[in-house]
């Protein structure tokens, strides 16, 4: 399981990573440059990675976090998003139908949509999956001139992160962003300032699929139990009606016209005893 470690203290905000990302993903550089100014967080369908100012002279990248238990993967109804064993969360445009539930489901609000296209697709960082498969670093990591990005096995990165925090003379805040949040993410941050400006959601250690998936696996059971309880209720009511018929002594059914007087109307939910048509219209 690979990941990226972001050292916020080393980032100078030069945006070489963004430029590399634009080249690697074949985005339109002019539109990407416009989107840097026109969007709130610099992310758009042309700009899958952005560098935001988090504090005076401190910058942090914002892009897909590649969660270990991604909410988008569990949300996509056609299974178009997958978490690869290598680490990247990748998107299959051939499956996508454009429902945009992944955009709603992402706690980091990362997926972007090609709104201006007539056949639009979702776009997000895929951690350069093709490159990673070939044993290369993602384009952004390769482009960083300051060594602020580090690519490698997630466990190794965690170790590096903690050793930097330990040897950093209290420069770093004692926290690795992404270690446990939302079940852990493949992109990790260490920083000397608070990272909430890049849109870090309220701390929620539990991952979203771990909330929803236990519920959805119960679906068949709920369906069956509803059906069986309906049959049970129906059986009881039919039996009561039959018994009442027998108690009435005669097999005659009296079909009284419904509600001759408006006065007797209250919302009694119980079976209407005046009406004994019996079974269905078979």
């Amino acid at each position, binding site marked *: 399981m690979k990941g990226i470690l972001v050292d916020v203290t080393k980032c100078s905000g030069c945006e070489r990573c963004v430029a590399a990302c634009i080249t690697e993903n074949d985005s339109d550089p002019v539109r990407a440059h416009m989107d840097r100014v026109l969007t709130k967080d610099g992310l758009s369908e042309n700009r899958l990675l952005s560098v935001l100012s988090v504090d005076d002279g401190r910058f942090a990248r914002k892009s897909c976090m590649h969660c270990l238990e991604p909410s988008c993967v569990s949300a996509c109804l056609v299974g178009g998003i997958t978490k690869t064993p290598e680490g990247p969360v990748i998107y299959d445009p051939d499956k996508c139908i*454009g429902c945009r539930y992944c955009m709603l489901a992402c706690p980091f609000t990362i997926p972007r949509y090609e709104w201006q296209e007539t056949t639009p697709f979702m776009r997000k960082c895929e951690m350069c999956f093709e490159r990673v498969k070939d044993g290369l670093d993602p384009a952004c990591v390769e482009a960083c001139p300051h060594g602020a990005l580090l690519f490698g096995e997630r466990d190794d990165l965690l170790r590096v992160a903690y050793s930097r925090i330990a040897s950093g003379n209290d420069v770093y805040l004692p926290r690795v962003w992404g270690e446990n949040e939302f079940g852990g993410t493949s992109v990790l941050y260490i920083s000397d300032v608070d990272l909430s400006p890049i849109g870090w959601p309220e701390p929620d250690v539990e991952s979203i699929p771990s909330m929803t998936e236990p519920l959805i696996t119960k679906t068949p059971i709920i369906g069956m139990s509803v059906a069986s309880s309906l049959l049970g209720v129906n059986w009881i009511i039919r039996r009561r009606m039959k018994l009442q018929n027998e108690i009435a002594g005669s097999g005659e059914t009296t079909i009284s016209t419904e509600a001759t007087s408006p006065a007797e109307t209250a919302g009694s939910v119980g079976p209407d005893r005046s009406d004994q048509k019996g079974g269905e219209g078979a």
Partner: protein
Amino acid sequence: MRRTRTLKDILWALAMAGLVAGMFRLWFGLGATTNLTDAVPWGLWKILNMIAGVAISTSGFTIGFLVYVLKLERFRPLMKPAILLAFLGYGCSCLALLFDIGLPFRFWHPFLMWNEHSFLFEVFWCVILYFTVTAIELGPTIFEKLRIERVAEYLHSIAFGVVVVGISLSSLHHSSLGSLFLVTPQRLHPLWYSSLLPLFFIISAMGAGMMFIVLIKILYARLYNRESVFGPKGEETIFLAPLSERKAGNGNHRSVGRDMPMLIGLASIAVSILGVFGILQIIDLLVSGSWRALIAGTWESWLFGLEMILLAGLPSFLVWNPRTRRSPTALGMAAFSACSGLMLNRLDVGIFGYFRNAGAFYFPSLAEWALSIGVIAAAGLAFLFFVENFPIFDEEWRNRRKDMGVFRASFDSLSRVWNTALSSGLERTTVIAVLVIPLAWGIMYPMYSRADGIEAIEPAVGLDITRTELCIDGNKTGVTTNFPHADHRERLGGESSCRSCHHMSLPGDETTACFRCHRQMVQSTLIFDHTGHTRAVAESEQLKGIHPSNHSCAVCHHEGEAKSAESSKPCLDCHKEDTAWAERSDGEDDLAYAVSYMEAMHNNCIPCHREKAEEVDRKTLGDCSTCHRSLVARQIVSETLVPDDH
């Protein structure tokens, strides 16, 4: 039946406007026709048409439950209308959804590509299956009318099983629609986010669905069969009972239609369910602590209050109050209130609840409204078609066949069109179409070219403009740079050039961002001046003609080939005087392109800075932060990592 006809005309007009909007959406795409953004990805079509539309069509399963399972035979007359409503409700929801998804031609993907962990997947399957169930339930009515008795009998015989399957499916997908929003605990406003959302959704949908059928029954009676609900003519009931009681002397003798008791009974059940929903909501707010958001006085809290009053408060009051409960008008108002409350609730959960977190506002575009309402209008027309041609509400439908002219198969012939155009039938529809479609097209057309919203840029006021260089954040991106103000002023035309960047009179755009002129900061730039060349070529070649420069294309571009920089004549073919230089500099073949502005500026300063940094032993002189003052100097980390005594 003037009223029916007017209603149909309005519905036709709305449906056609919706058709135009649908064509726009397919032709121009989502971004051009809707106001959806990355911050608010789900809009009117999904929330109002799909989620609220499905929720309000619960009548099919709730009435089925009352009639088939609980054996409350007095509600049987409502069974067929309920099924019809469910069928149409689900049908029009699916239709609207087809326009909402980005790639409509892939609607079949979920049939083959499964992700059983997705709530949306569950909703999709349950909705499709339940839609089939409603079609089967509607079958007997259709087949009996068409005199295919064997099929009708068979469908009758499996009715109970189908109803049970339908109820199970409904209970699953109505709760799953609520579960859809469980994945957004950080984003949805705490007033609406609750782990009980699935429960809330199914309960409110059941109550409001029953109220919807009450509303439809009353509206139907208004149009076709007044006596059945409102009582005999001339003895129309008055809204406030006390008044009529005073008039009649005794309230008990007030006459209402024969179906009124049934409707009151159903409405009573419905408001009990809605009351339970309201109480559950309040308890949940109290337990989760979100009640603080309710008294915070934000617009969300007012919206929540309005929703609760419409959905639970007002209907309960109107139905339980003995003074109003027996008035068909009051009952209709209660039902309408409950239905609109449900709509509002779904819009809150699906759209409004996200504004606070997204920091963005969304108001549907004209095309979104048109399609949304158009689909509902189309469902309304289908509803009218069914009740006029099939025994849905009662057996008196044959008497109304004279009103069904709209659907009569007749076609315009030129000779008759003006005589009969406004009288009846398809001709009327044609006239409506001729009027509405161009009108809708005209109104909606500008919507497709949505202007890009430009964020406000703070003016660099208070800076000393007499200095040659200012430190500005010209693109408002949190990065400052040294800006040669005096130099810009000189190049752009002295005193009078201020207005090319500073627009004090323009709201939201006080200064022009750097990138507005320096468009290609990071891209290598085309330095070839095309306009100048066409003019110069026309002059030097002595081209004749009305527009001489029009004839200059062929000088550089070849006929039958796309006119691009790559396919045109090489620059050095004409610029002979530059040939010697070009040959010297190892044959640069791409003369038209210069390095990007950013690179040019960087190359201008950085090499010398780096050199000097070595020379004067100031390592940071070559850093980005020397010019970009918002960037941090490199040494911070290295200094802190190196122990002090070194």
